[in-house]
């Protein structure tokens, strides 16, 4: 086996090697954490007792079927590398994860990581049409295929999407692609508070406009509305949006370099933050949620997709503010740790009855219990 090993990380170069390693680990009862290239070992239960299984070496097998608008991407390729290649044919995987575009495809799918473009394009879960995984029983399994429409058999792709390495190592993913937009414009609207910006976002969401991003950001409360379409459509929709945002203290339309700078600055905040929590709520509760969150001193930045019902927050220190529990409980929201210790008391367990089925699935895929189970408060 040509596995490149170090003391803590194993980097197989094929799916079979990964499966072989997992089988041996099951035999040895060694705990394994599947990781991307920028390891998030803090997701592990006990870092001293584990080996990281990296998908970084899985970089062969990229296949772009441009005429079919699909591509198979090995798990070790970064999203930016995949998109650079797809762009030559005018297509892309329309995702902008919080972890940044350098994130590996394996990590992206294992975390079901998404960012502002989720408003218009969805999350990895919405774009997966096929998957290859290395399992703890030493086998390499496939689900789905390379056609967009396929209802044959169980959807292993969605089962593994967001499974956070708890069932095996994702080794390749086939995505439904989108055409690269011909133009992009962003309306940057300033508000007195993030809650006001969210209320404006929910009004816009009820209009006929179809932005790809409808994002509230803070601490400097703004609403970012992005249109990705033909140049004239993007221009006209941006102008129309600006006219609709009467409550904003100021609204500018940015494009080209200025637009890129707005979004890069926004992404940079979340890419480097040591701790990011995702709060999920009904869309209409998001303004109240933002009002409460902005009162918490250690929430240093937030980014919300009100129409989706998702708020990402950056907090000072390793643990979130204790008041977060009260806020989420009052507004029937729940917290999901995106980056940081997943086993803090705020992490919401699945409902007990459903957790039983999840554990049964986990037991089937990982009977020796070598892979982590991140949904259990300590």
């Amino acid at each position, binding site marked *: 086996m040509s596995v490149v090993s170090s003391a803590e990380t194993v980097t197989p170069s094929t799916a079979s090697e990964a499966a072989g390693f997992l089988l041996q680990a099951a*035999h040895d009862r060694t705990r394994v954490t599947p990781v991307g290239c920028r390891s998030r070992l803090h997701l592990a239960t006990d870092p001293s007792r584990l080996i990281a299984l990296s998908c970084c070496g899985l970089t062969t097998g990229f296949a772009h079927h441009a005429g079919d*608008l699909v591509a198979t991407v090995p798990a070790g390729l970064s999203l930016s590398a995949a998109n650079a290649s797809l762009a030559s044919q005018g297509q892309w995987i329309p995702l902008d994860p919080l972890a940044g575009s350098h994130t590996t495809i394996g990590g992206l799918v294992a975390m079901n990581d998404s960012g502002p473009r989720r408003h218009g394009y969805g999350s990895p*879960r919405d774009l997966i049409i096929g998957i290859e995984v290395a399992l703890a029983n030493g086998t390499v399994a496939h689900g789905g295929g390379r*056609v967009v429409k*396929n*209802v044959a*058999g*169980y959807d292993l792709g969605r089962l593994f999407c*967001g499974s956070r390495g708890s069932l095996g190592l994702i080794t390749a993913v086939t995505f439904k692609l989108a055409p690269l937009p011909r133009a992009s414009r962003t309306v940057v609207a300033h508000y007195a508070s993030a809650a006001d910006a969210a209320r404006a976002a929910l009004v816009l969401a009820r209009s006929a406009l179809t932005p790809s991003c409808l994002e509230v950001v803070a601490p400097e409360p703004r609403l970012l509305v992005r249109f990705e379409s033909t140049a004239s459509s993007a221009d006209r929709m941006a102008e129309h949006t600006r006219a609709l945002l009467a409550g904003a203290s100021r609204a500018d339309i940015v494009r080209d370099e200025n637009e890129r700078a707005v979004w890069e600055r926004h992404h940079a905040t979340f890419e480097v933050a040591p701790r990011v929590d995702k709060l999920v709520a009904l869309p209409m509760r998001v303004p109240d949620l933002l009002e409460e969150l902005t009162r918490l001193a250690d929430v240093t930045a937030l980014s919300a997709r009100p129409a989706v019902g998702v708020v990402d927050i950056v907090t000072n220190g390793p643990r979130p503010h204790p008041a977060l529990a009260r806020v989420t409980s009052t507004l029937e929201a729940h917290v999901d740790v995106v980056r940081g210790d997943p086993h803090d008391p705020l992490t919401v367990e699945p409902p007990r009855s459903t957790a039983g089925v999840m554990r049964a699935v986990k037991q089937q*895929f990982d009977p020796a219990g070598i892979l982590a189970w991140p949904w259990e408060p300590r």
Partner: protein
Amino acid sequence: MDPRFLQALADALPGDSVVRDASELLIYESDALVHLRNRPGAVVLPRSACEVQAVVRLCHDHRVPFVARGHGTGLSGGALPHPDGVLIVLSRLNRILDVDPDNQRVVVEPGVTNLQITQRVAPLGLYYAPDPSSQSVCSIGGNIAENSGGAHCLKYGFTVHHVLGIEVVLPNGALVTIGGSTVDTPGLDLLGVFIGSEGTLGVVTKVTLRLLRKPEAVLTLLAAFDSIDAAGGAVSSIIAHGIVPAAVEMMDRLTIQAAEAAVHPNFPDRDAVLIVELDGPQIEVDELFEVVERVCREAGAVSVEIARDQGQRDRIWKGRKAAFAAMGRVSPNYYVQDGVVPRTKLPEVLGRIRDLSVRSGLRIGNVFHAGDGNLHPLICYDGSIPGQAEHAEKVASEILHYCIEAGGAITGEHGVGADKKRYMADMYGAVDLDTMQMVRCAFDPSNICNPGKVFPTPRLCGEVPGPYRAHPVETLGLAERV
């Protein structure tokens, strides 16, 4: 069936909810795939999740198989009853429980039809996106079982993209909620794996769906071509221009003639018609529609009709959606196939189907979702001629192999059910199927929930198929068979 079990069933439900009379059982012998029939041991028609739970608990305790059925419109025998089992008919769970227009949610029971949801929320400017051709009669519970799509799934996705949560009675009788009213509920995505599992993982009793806002503009055109290849070229060119239409549908001459005879949509009598629909903001749709129209003409369209109003649009869609049923106008019997090929392989596979039609002596009509490569060949035969039904089935089977060879799938929307389970091993490897079985065993270790469907060889959880082969875990001495 065991009389003690039947008595327990009768005790658990109101008198009119259990059907045992042989003549009444007749109507439940098949779903819409009528050549597969089984008389169920008993039929129950529960009115609540509690009654469903009571039935499933009894089945679990007595190890009696059960099959859930919506409105019986499935085309793969997914709701084919088990002869020694209970058929749980969900048509009485047919209430729309809650409409939340602000959050764009609706909560319904599984027996509500797909179209009823859109009809209920349309005055609010909302709609439910998946639109299978049978939407006026198919149940939302059945849509979840099959992960139904429809003509507009090219842009808007399938059922799995629009369901937020389900209440389910698991095969052990537990009532659980999977997902919820928000996105991203904690833990594994059981919702994603449940949707499309064809009733093999539990019985849905309540559903929370996401609604969409009606687009500002919808523009539809009907382009006629003198060859399917030319129409296919237009589809490729539309995609190459970076346009993702709301729908792209194609019909060939035989299906055009059938639709014309049945519902008179006034389609041109040509080799192929293409229906292209764009939706979205008016300013965007107007601009892109001009491109689509130009592309169709450049690809050789002999006529392009643009629907000027909702009435014209409805007429065009009526012609398309009636295509299956309309085949009865041109053939005494027909076999509906459902397969998928990568879009770029459409010309090649359609060519093979044409050759097959000549070779087999059976006429084959083609109506398909051209945007996503989902074919629906309609194989015409005369059931009164001995052997011709079997011949048609063989022809349909050969077409599925064309799909697999082209890198496609054996079903795009009708499901595997009882009809296509024999092809699963042609599409997936043994390891892939064993891995799917692991999911099934987690939900239904007793194998009582719609057994004998989807997978080619029903087997007990933990059982190794075929000649004995040691599991890798055994080889390493991690576990041993007892």
